[in-house]
């Protein structure tokens, strides 16, 4: 499903080159749940950005469902994301000017789905936010915002879901609730889940764990 070959990322910082990823090789099968773990600065988020096609690699390649992301331009990758990929972020990333319902409808509308509203309502009910469709993000608690984000991620029925520290901004009880929801929905839809976290308890719930240290895979 996802294949990373000799993935490298270098950035220029304060006049010298900084190597963030030093040649990552990784293969994730369809329907698999994988946790990418590691300390702050180990390169987890950078790896996630590259796998999801949000960023371009300095060297190496990412192939998802037989498409090599490096061969696509920015717009091509955007179209690819619309079709295949969903996200859940640490800081939720809801559009503040849109209601909960409109936020969930957004990726469906981008895909041109005619049933965007029904689909969005369905998923919001699934995350138990049925009565709060018309609320704006600022009127929702952190946990509620993350549930909207999960509804948004699953509503467009992506094949792969990337989650970046999904519980990082939540207290442990709310975080646990969110995780349960995430894994439930994942099972229901058979989605491939790639999760970046430094929460070992969360990582334990995944089928596989990839540990990064200083830009390289330390252990699997």
């Amino acid at each position, binding site marked *: 499903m996802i294949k990373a070959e000799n993935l490298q990322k270098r950035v220029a910082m304060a006049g010298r080159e900084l190597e963030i990823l030093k040649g990552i090789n990784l293969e994730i099968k369809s329907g698999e749940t994988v946790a990418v773990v590691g300390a702050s600065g180990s390169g987890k*988020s950078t790896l996630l950005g590259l796998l999801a096609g*949000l960023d371009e690699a300095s060297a190496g390649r990412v192939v998802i469902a037989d498409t090599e992301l490096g061969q696509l331009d920015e*717009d091509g990758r*955007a179209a690819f994301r*619309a079709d295949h990929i969903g996200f859940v972020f640490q800081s939720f*990333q809801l559009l*503040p*000017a849109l209601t909960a319902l409109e936020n969930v409808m957004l*990726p469906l509308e981008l895909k*041109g789905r005619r049933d965007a509203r029904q689909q969005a309502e369905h998923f919001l009910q699934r995350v138990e936010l049925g009565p709060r469709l018309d609320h704006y993000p600022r009127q929702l608690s952190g946990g509620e915002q993350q549930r909207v984000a999960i509804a948004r991620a699953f509503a467009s029925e992506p094949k792969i879901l990337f989650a970046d520290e999904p519980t990082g901004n939540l207290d442990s009880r709310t975080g646990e609730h969110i995780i349960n929801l995430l894994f439930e929905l994942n099972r229901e839809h058979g989605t491939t889940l790639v999760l970046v976290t430094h929460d070992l308890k969360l990582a334990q719930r995944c089928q596989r764990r990839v540990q990064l240290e200083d830009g390289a895979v330390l252990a699997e």
Partner: protein
Amino acid sequence: MKVTAARMLARDWRGGELGVLVAALILAVAVVTGISAFTSRLQAALEQESHRFLAADVVVTSAAEMPASWRQEAQSLAIDTAQTLSFPSMVFAADDNMFLASIKAVSEHYPLRGELRYSEQAFAEAQPAAQGPESGSVWLDSRLFALLDVSIGDSVSVGEATFQVAAAVRSEPDQSPSIYNMGPRVLMHFSDIAATEVVQPGSRVEYRQLFAGEARLIQRFVTWLEPQLQPGQRLLDVKQGQPGIGSALQRAESFLLLAGSLAVVLAGVAIALAARRFSERHTDYVAIMKSLGASSGAINRLYGSSLLLLGLAATTLGCALGWLMQAGFFAIFAEHLPVLPGPSGIRPYAIGFTTAFTCLLCFAWPPLRRLAQASPLRVLRRDMPHENRRSLGDYLLGLLAVAALMFWYSGDWRLSLAVLLGLAITIVLGLGLALSLLRGGRLLGMSAGSIWRLALAGLQRRGSANALQVVIFAMAIMLLLVLVLLRTSLIDEWQAQLPPDAPNHFMLNIAPEQLQSVTDMLRSHSIPSEALYPMVSGRVMSVNGEDLPQTDDKQQGRRQRGANFTWADSLPAGNELLAGQWWETGSTAAEVSLEEEFAERLGLAVGDTVGLLIAAEALEVKVSSIRKLDWQSFRPNFFMVFPPKVLADYPATFMTSFHLDAEQKSFLNQLIRTFPTITVIEMDLLVEQVRAIIDQVSAAIELVLAVILAAGALVLVAGVQASVDMRMQESSILRALGAGRRLILGGLAIEFATMGLFAGLLATIAAEFSVFALQVWVMEMSYAPTPWLWPLGIALGVLLITGLGLYSCRKVVSSPPLAVLREL
């Protein structure tokens, strides 16, 4: 893509994201449209008003009767016509009383514009007349009643015809301000001319053919007429009609257009600031949308159509507001405006529309277009820098757009250039000075106390953003200073031109032996008067030994001219020497000082000789100087001035001018009865008219200035707001770390005050240049430096920016830091 622009706008609107941009846009359109509609309606009204001085829209003057085909052509275009004929002639009354009068015969419909006023008794209260005298009757100048010893109902004769005196003529709209060869007026009907048998071929007469109608038709008619004009026939329109009013109106027009252009510039700056903030706030949106799979094309389409919708909505609202604004102006000023506002036409709204879309395209679109390039990686890393930095190209595009709009709006490249010069000076000096000074502060700041260190560090950290802001503040302040300066100098000049006690009557033909008793009489009634000027009549016969042709209508070029000469030991008040030398007191040399235009018409320069005929004696004099006169001063003015001894042996009379209040008018009766040979010319109604117009124009200028000041203040607010987010964030963090109110507010105050200081300084420098260029190139005024501008400009900069800045950031010390941070 189903996320339509309208939905995004609606959502943004609900979320409060669009407020600043929409407000700036609506304000821009409203100000531009409102001022433009106001000025064009006022211009139409004032032009109408100034047509009064022609009694028509256009006039052709000629020494011979004009072809009837002109009137037929005009009538076929639905243009009204009327004719007048003026000539000097003796008027006779009973008991051999007679007087040389200035006769004017007028046809039906005269005047086509303005008002003819009459009174039922001499010097009684004047009232408007529906039309001139009927055939068989005449209206006499008030003073003729005394001079001819007649009253209403008596008979007088002109040439072979006898008329009944029906009224006193008090004022004609097209009364010539020229005071020479002007006897008291006798007004009669045009059809009575033949009966008098006075007008013969070769008589000194002036025919005037008057035309009035819709501007478009008049334009068409003039185009048709002009090629048919013979030498000696002259076409007059408003610009030539009344020099005093003409230049006042032209300057006022320049000022209003300038004000409108500045509104365009301010609007552009406000929109640019708002769009920048809007695009910065939307970078995260775009990143999220891109991470969810939106292509850059889709994002461009989304923001492009949003901008289009926004432009349409703001234009509609702005035009409506602009209409309301100008209607409000006229409602407030209705009682001060004796003229009815004319129609504004569609142009102001077209200007509003074009301004809105030009501003959107050149100021708002560049940063929004770049939004599509925002990296989707921002969803993972929010601290990534904004990528929508403006390029040099953006600024050039904006500057070009402003220049083009200004030129289109004012139609005057010199005016546009003068303002652009000021803006360019601000930008160049601003960026250089601000950057280098802000950098220079680093060393200074390190050793200073902690408030200073905080403030200077803040200034430097955002060095280029701050420099840009300084330039924007300076531009707004500069434009306001320019307007205030020009308004002050215009109004001062007008007031100086017509002080309340300006002379409004002229007295001519005072014999030397009458001088003492006339002066005594004026003094005994405490009537202030100007100096007495001697007057000698003569004729210019030759130039540099070459005789001039005699005919005065067939020849366009130089010809013999009659003129009144005076003598003086020193340069008369209000005269300015342009070339040559003034003579020494007591000079006996045969020399003369000429008025600039008179010299030009005769092709004379300093050193040339002129041959004159005075009282049948020839006199040859050398031109020793050229003078410039102020024709708008209502003082006696002379084309030719001689040293006293040169004219001493010729017969002279004297003239003067004096000021008479309305309630003192009966003094004239007494004066004329005591000195029947003296000619008095009443200019009071004319002076009053001129003053009324100037008052209106001044009021309009004050009003427009107030609106522009408000617009300028808004740009300052938008400018301060643009930087508030970052300052608030930093201050909140400091606050969270325990910084006191004094430290934070003090730091912010120093930061804003420093920017205000630079902005005020730049604004003042640029304003001086701009005002110089405007006064010298556009308004044809003389430039005087304004030392008070410097402290004013700098104080304005510091106080305004500091005040607005602290006000915008006040939350930082009044709300909990976390609440502030969360809102950003």
